[in-house]
């Protein structure tokens, strides 16, 4: 199976719709542990991508690169920059290709995770979007139904981390108080992955 420009466009539509739907939910999750703008960041970024999606090239690397740029320009929030960093990582690997072999997806996600980790200077296990991606990378690796595995992984990450304290970003300051609360960035990745995989 392969992912082409068309697959990407369809996923963009679903993710954009999911972000519009989750606007309030993400803002208030971020409001409880941060500055309350994560819904704004995600809708702005996805709207910017949607606005130019018809112009995306067939070169899937270039297409992802332009998606990354849309995030970089539309907001300076941490999450937008992390998303851009992850997309950029995949974009560099895929440059010149017109499709992605799904077999390579776990590796692409793992590489994105690593680049994002470098950018955010945070450890895995800190209850952030990194942990969601880490779960996805590991769960998809060798899975039969990769989409289902990814969707299950983001759910599992939520469950496994809910009762840990936040140690990264604005949420860090809440320390123990963050136990029992979902990390907004993990919630956003849950929505993104489920929309991307059509769950």
């Amino acid at each position, binding site marked *: 199976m392969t992912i082409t420009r068309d697959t990407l466009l369809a996923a963009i539509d679903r993710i954009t719709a999911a972000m519009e739907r989750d606007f309030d939910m993400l803002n208030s999750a971020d409001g409880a542990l941060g*500055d309350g703008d994560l819904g704004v960041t995600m809708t702005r970024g996805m709207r910017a991508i949607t606005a130019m999606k018809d112009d995306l090239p067939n070169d899937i690397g270039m297409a992802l690169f332009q998606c990354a740029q849309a995030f970089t*320009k539309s*907001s*300076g*929030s941490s999450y937008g*920059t992390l998303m*851009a960093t992850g997309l950029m990582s995949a974009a560099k690997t895929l440059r010149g290709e017109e499709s992605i072999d799904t077999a390579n997806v776990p590796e692409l996600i793992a590489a994105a995770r690593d680049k994002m980790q470098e*950018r955010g200077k945070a450890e895995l296990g800190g209850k952030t979007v990194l942990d969601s991606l880490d779960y996805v990378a590991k769960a998809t690796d060798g899975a039969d139904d990769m989409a289902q595995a990814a969707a299950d992984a983001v759910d599992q990450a939520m469950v496994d981390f809910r009762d840990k304290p936040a140690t990264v970003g604005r949420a860090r300051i809440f320390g123990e108080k963050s136990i029992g609360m979902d990390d907004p960035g993990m919630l956003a990745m849950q929505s993104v992955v489920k929309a991307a995989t059509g769950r």
Partner: protein
Amino acid sequence: MKKILNNPENYVDEMLAGMTAAHPEYYRLHGDSGKVVARAKAGKSGKVGIVTGGGSGHLPVFTGYVGEGLLDACAIGDVFASPSAEQMADAIRAADSSAGVLRLYGNYGGDVMNFDMAGELVEFEDITCTTVLLADDVASAPPEEAEKRRGVAGMVYAFKIAGAAAEEGRDLDAVTAVAQKAADACRSIGAALSPCTVPQAGKPTFEIADDEMEMGMGIHGEPGVWRGKLKTADDIAGEMMDRLLADMPLTNGDRVSVMVNSLGATPPEELYILYRMVKSRLEDAGATIVMPLVGRYATSMEMAGVSFTLCKLDDELEKLLNAPCDCAFWRVG
């Protein structure tokens, strides 16, 4: 907190339009993002550039400090939101006159990521960047994790000192080193009495009872070290000084500058009432006060509250602090 606004979406654009229109001798917009402010008259060619950036809503921080003997350019985001990496790259470009650029800003996750990314973008254009992060808020992490602290009003000292060093013609490494020294010499703490309203959010950043205050609160309403009954001015000043001096003890003969800063709504009258106690505590410690700064230097729009910053000086820092500077909000010499 009531605000005088048009469409909240346009808050920052309109603010920058008004600011550059009111002070064309100091500020101009650079590039086409509309979010980068540069000096009206570019600095001497060959001078090390100094850029900063961060969220809007803190005037004079950040854009206000663009000026001679201070910053060269600044990227500014929405209220309390980081500017984008692209905008920061533009600010770096505006500040560069081929002697390299120091990125000098507060330690906030988003800003750090974006300035790092911006540095990668301009690397392709052969602009060398260094970084100094302000992490002066003692309430935001214990001394063992001092590098995790948030950057607050201490950055004003760093802007001033690094700006003077750059103006003197020092090279990028030297400017960076002295900026780091200034950053290391600063300790701050804030106390908030009331929240402010982020225009696009439309509601206060936090709730607090009419007879309460929060010690150690951050400038975006980040939780502090305690919340309780509003104390007297002398008790507030006393506790804030205790916390600062515990983190950076002063001994007889030390020279120190101190900033007593309004977070916005708190008027100068109250700052002066606080300053009596600040001065007597520093004098009790045997320190000599150099250039006390009492006023609004780093704010959160209409938040009521204060912050204190100590900047411990050696001869080099004191000389640079006293060097001339000029922007619409602050002039020395």
